[in-house]
């Protein structure tokens, strides 16, 4: 039963994709909506049915055929079919690994459900369903309705394969699949100039990360002889001599490069802000809630690999911090509603990497879940605003929308409150758990507190730019263009907003802090996924009083940011302009997004282009010359040889005579 349900989860969106892809062109919008939302809704039900027993620990160990249920690991593994039988004698001895392991290697097409993937599929199908409902209304006035939902259903199917795959190669299939859908959906408005280019940029930047992921995967295969989680991770955990070696660091580093590309971490973050050229529901689903968190999922999934390379883990945290601060500071000066949210997403992903870098994997997953709620809500709210404003996204032309968009305003207020980390909505708990995770890690004291301080500064910036967004959009005097008549979105759009608002508000119950005395549900659920036995990144105990104190510091910091934004953008709106005028260098730096596009362009794009120009010259001057010379010399040879066939009988006779004489003299003189 469990096995069937598990297979059905990714199959349903795939069926939706097939139906819409094949027949969508001839279907009415109503039919497309029914199929697209229906399959995701059913997939959510199936995900719920299979995830709950796993999360609640109601499993009994059993092995029947292709289905392996492990109660201790709270996992269900279903091997559907032989996918990559690489060895002639595959399946002979699973224990053997070494130079001849390839003879025994076989990778099944299998699904693996454990608490981590259970949480992921609930987020993907749940938030995905709400976004589909919203999009079915939002996109109804756009051309290519069926095309949009074909891609969306394919995306959900691929994302589910990414998190449900029972081995790294299958994760990679989903990884590339979601990348493809991201490319297709960013460039959805292909008649315009910018979106296809943004899609291409996303695809190419991701390619760099994918190369790292692939290499890391191959290193794991060479070292441990398997890529199936259930087989690989215990082997890594058992190999104590592996810990801390250069090989371990290299493997973790390569996997992290993959995560950096997908999750838009510095310096591979440049594609995500550009990806906002796609339709808003795409930004909500792919570039906020699900796909971009795949990197975080990868690190949590491969946590044992990162634990075996503590130095690399620390680098993960530092990269996360750099990304969080950089993106948050850029968000301060953005005036495009979606661009602010995009940089905010990059920044929040940085937070998740801080968490998984210091070994607080549950905190990373917790923030992933709450972020999926409130960031999807923020994007959908932004979509609702742009819907009301006739496509306008420039916050300088908004203001005073609270009266016209009462529902959007309230859900955005909840989401902003949540992301700012103000108590007691979801963002507060997850951000607090990350900060606590940093403090309780066993990193060197100076580094630990530096990361903590940096994360706190990030929280201040987050609260500031989010309330800046809120006040610039909904409060103050209207600054609308002529002829704009804002109107509230229909119920099909506001209903998902309210559900997400509810989730953003109460999502914190998944991971209440220890000082509340409540049980941290996610932390306990994730215990079998995180390998504590080889935990190099240990945990230090923290007194509840200290923890509460740290939480109060975080609240004060977030409140300062929020109140500051309120003061500057609602009361004294002249201050930001004067501050910008007083600090022209800083403004230019932030407006220029630290010139990361230019730096990467100079370092990689231009060097690649000049290399290719060099290669082109080599091709023309050397290769082509060689090719032409060979053709020319063949012609020359033919020209010379054609004289042999003069057609004159006497010449031939001379040849015969000379030949005969030569043969005879050879015979005689031999």
């Amino acid at each position: 039963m469990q096995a069937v349900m598990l297979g059905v989860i990714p199959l349903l969106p795939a069926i939706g994709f097939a139906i819409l892809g094949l027949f969508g062109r001839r279907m009415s919008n109503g039919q497309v909506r029914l199929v697209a939302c229906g399959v995701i809704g059913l997939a959510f039900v199936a995900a719920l049915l299979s995830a709950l027993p796993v999360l609640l620990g109601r499993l009994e160990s059993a092995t029947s055929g292709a289905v392996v249920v492990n109660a201790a690991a709270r996992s269900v593994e279903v091997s559907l079919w032989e996918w990559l039988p690489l060895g002639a004698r595959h399946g002979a001895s699973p224990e053997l690994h070494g130079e001849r392991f390839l003879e025994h290697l076989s990778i099944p097409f299998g699904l693996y459900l454990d608490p981590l993937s259970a949480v992921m599929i609930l987020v993907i199908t749940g938030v995905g369903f709400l976004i589909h409902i919203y999009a079915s209304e939002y996109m109804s006035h756009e051309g290519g309705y069926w095309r949009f939902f074909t891609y969306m259903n394919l995306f959900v199917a691929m994302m589910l394969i990414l998190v449900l795959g029972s081995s790294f190669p299958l994760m990679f299939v989903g990884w590339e699949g979601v990348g493809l859908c991201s490319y297709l959906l960013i460039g959805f408005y292909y008649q315009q100039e910018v979106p296809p280019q943004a899609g291409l940029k996303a695809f190419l930047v991701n390619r760099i990360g994918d190369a790292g992921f692939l290499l890391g995967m191959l290193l794991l295969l060479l070292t441990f002889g398997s890529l199936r989680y259930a087989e690989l991770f215990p082997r890594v955990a058992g190999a104590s001599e592996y810990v801390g070696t250069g090989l371990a660091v290299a493997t973790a580093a390569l996997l992290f490069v993959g995560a950096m590309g997908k999750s838009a971490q510095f310096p591979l973050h440049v594609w995500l802000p550009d990806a906002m050229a796609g339709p808003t529901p795409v930004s909500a689903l792919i570039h906020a809630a699900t796909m971009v968190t795949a990197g975080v999922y990868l690190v949590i999934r491969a946590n044992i690999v990162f634990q075996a390379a503590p130095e690399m883990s620390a680098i993960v945290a530092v990269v996360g911090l750099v990304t969080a601060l950089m993106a948050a500071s850029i968000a301060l000066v953005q005036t495009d509603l979606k661009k602010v949210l995009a940089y905010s997403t990059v920044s929040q992903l940085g937070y998740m990497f801080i968490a998984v870098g210091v070994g607080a994997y549950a905190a990373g997953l917790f923030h992933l879940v709450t972020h999926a709620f409130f960031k999807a809500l923020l994007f959908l709210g932004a979509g609702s605003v742009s819907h009301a404003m006739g496509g306008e996204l420039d916050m300088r032309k908004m203001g005073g929308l609270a009266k016209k968009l009462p529902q959007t305003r309230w859900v955005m207020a909840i989401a902003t409150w949540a992301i700012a980390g103000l108590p007691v909505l979801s963002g507060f708990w997850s951000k607090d758990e990350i900060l606590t995770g940093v403090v309780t890690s066993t990193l060197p004291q100076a580094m630990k507190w530096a990361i903590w301080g940096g994360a706190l500064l990030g929280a201040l910036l987050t609260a500031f730019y989010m309330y800046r967004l809120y006040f610039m959009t909904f409060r103050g005097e209207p600054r609308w263009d002529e002829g704009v008549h804002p109107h509230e979105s229909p119920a099909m759009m506001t209903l998902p907003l309210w559900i997400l608002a509810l989730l953003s508000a109460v999502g914190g119950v998944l991971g209440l802090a220890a000082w509340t005395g409540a049980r941290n549900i996610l932390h306990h659920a994730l215990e079998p996924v995180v390998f504590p036995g080889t935990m190099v990144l240990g945990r230090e105990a923290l007194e509840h009083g200290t923890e509460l104190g740290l939480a109060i510091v975080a609240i004060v910091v977030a409140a300062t940011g929020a109140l500051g934004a309120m003061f500057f953008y609602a009361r004294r709106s002249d201050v930001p302009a004067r501050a910008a005028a007083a600090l022209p260098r800083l403004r230019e730096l932030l407006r220029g997004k630290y010139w990361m596009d230019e730096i990467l362009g100079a370092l990689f794009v231009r060097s690649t282009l000049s290399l290719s120009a060099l290669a082109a010259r080599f091709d023309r001057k050397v290769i082509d010359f060689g090719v032409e010379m060979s053709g020319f010399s063949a012609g020359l040879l033919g020209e010379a040889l054609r004289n042999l066939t003069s057609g004159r009988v006497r010449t031939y006779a001379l040849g015969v005579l000379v030949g005969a004489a030569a043969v005879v003299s050879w015979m005689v003189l031999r």
Partner: protein
Amino acid sequence: MSGLALLHSVVPASWAILLAVTLFAIGACGVLLRRNAIIVFASIEMMMNAANVLFVAMADSWDHAAGRIFVFFVIVVAAAEAAVGLGIVLALYRLHGTVDIDRASLMRG
């Protein structure tokens, strides 16, 4: 002493060989240097008869019948070849109005 034995004593084998080689060389030169198909044809006949002379001389010298028998074969083949060859020459003349073999160079590369 029979007639043959007399011949042997008077004409050594080397003379016959020299005669054959001379005849062959004259024939070869005729084939290579002349352009008239009839002359070329006659030269070929001369080369064949040079071979015949050599056959007979050696058959005598080694006292072996095979050489003499070969000569008859060569004469028969030469007769057939003369029929075919003259036919070709005639056809060549009809085609070009001349028997200059350098004009018959349709197969020139």
